[in-house]
């Protein structure tokens, strides 16, 4: 059985949707991120980097990195149908999954933890503003890839879509993002309406785009 260390409003959402869609048996261990439990000895023994999510595999191997979890599950459950098999489509899926993790998620961290990106006591505001600008540019690039939509591969949901929708939901001004990028809004609508993904979305307390728009 898999064991997912999770907390609301973290990247664990992407791992959990992947586990659920693949039909993998798992148990969730909630780490109280708001209360700082991810910085306490018990959790640091599991993941010394103090980040969430972490995933223990059935063989005991522990992994970090939300995108690596998605790739692992895509590979472990090839028949799930939630990851493309065709070479050209896989290239597209890899590109946007890595983009979501290395660019979108990382830029979100820059405004969520702005003070860590500068040694100046009053530097956080400048970091935050740069991150806001940058993420809006990144979303305009993602929107291009969401044609015709609503998902990256048209009507077919893959493990990529909930990942990207999750980072969109963390946007510093979601109503504005939805207004500026209708295709991102359409992705959010489709992901939250998905019968398997919607309930997880709500449990992770991610905002609903319909209310935002």
């Amino acid at each position, binding site marked *: 059985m898999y064991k997912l260390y999770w907390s609301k409003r973290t990247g664990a959402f992407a791992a959990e949707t992947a586990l659920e869609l693949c039909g993998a048996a798992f148990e969730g261990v909630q780490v109280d991120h708001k209360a700082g439990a991810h910085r306490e000895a018990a959790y640091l023994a599991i993941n010394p980097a103090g980040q969430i999510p972490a995933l223990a595999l059935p063989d005991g191997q522990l992994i970090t990195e939300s995108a690596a979890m998605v790739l692992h599950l895509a590979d472990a459950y090839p028949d799930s149908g939630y990851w493309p098999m065709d070479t050209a489509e896989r290239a597209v899926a*890899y590109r946007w999954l890595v983009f979501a993790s290395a660019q979108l998620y990382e830029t979100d961290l820059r405004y969520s933890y702005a003070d860590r990106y500068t040694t100046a006591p009053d530097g956080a505001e400048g970091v935050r503003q740069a991150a806001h600008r940058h993420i809006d540019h990144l979303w305009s690039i993602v929107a291009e890839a969401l044609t015709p939509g609503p998902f990256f591969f048209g009507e077919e949901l893959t493990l990529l879509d909930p990942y990207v929708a999750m980072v969109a939901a963390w946007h510093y001004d979601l109503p504005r993002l939805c207004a500026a990028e209708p295709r991102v809004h359409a992705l959010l609508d489709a992901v939250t309406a998905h019968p398997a993904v919607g309930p997880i979305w709500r449990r992770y307390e991610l905002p609903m785009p319909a209310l935002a728009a």
Partner: protein
Amino acid sequence: MANPYRLYWTPTSGSFVVELMLREAGAPHETIQVEDRRAEDFLAVNPLGKVPVLELPDGTVMTESAAMVLQLFDAYPEADFTPQGAASWTKARRWLMFLTCELYTAYQQSYHSEHFTVGSRIAREEVKSAGRGRVRELWKIFEAQALDPGPFVLGERYSAVDAYAAMLASWDQSPEVLLTIRPRLGSLVQAVCDRPETAAVLEKYRLGFGA
């Protein structure tokens, strides 16, 4: 004949690992040096104005160096650089993602601090120094967890994840110091440099590890 891979590159950039893989695989490829990342014609290829960009033989355009590594794993399942066995795959993907999300970003923060703050020159210096601190912290985690026991991320067997790590290490402000305080990373770098194709690609990219 199928089209060659086309790799857009600049010296010192993340294209290094992709070119090394293409050479090691014996994949037909051509490389296109980008003179100006902000030029209209390059922005039409990648609106973010970043390298690497890889065009596959079927015309699909990719950005994100780690995604290219994953794609080349798929394309060359038998290559030396491709992990073998489920546990190795899982480990390789984890550390590849760690390197690209965390360390690549921390190096970008050190070298392109202007993208990380709207502040003045002084504010950019403060962002740079935070980036350098983060780089050191991340290598510590990497050495303790990914290189235990080493010498490679997958133990005795090389993979492209090692080349990715060596590339990032070569970007360090002072690689000699880094490899001294992180000796297992030093052994990994040495083992990557000992591979027959590495030296020529390092030289092309003007990358190295100091004295």
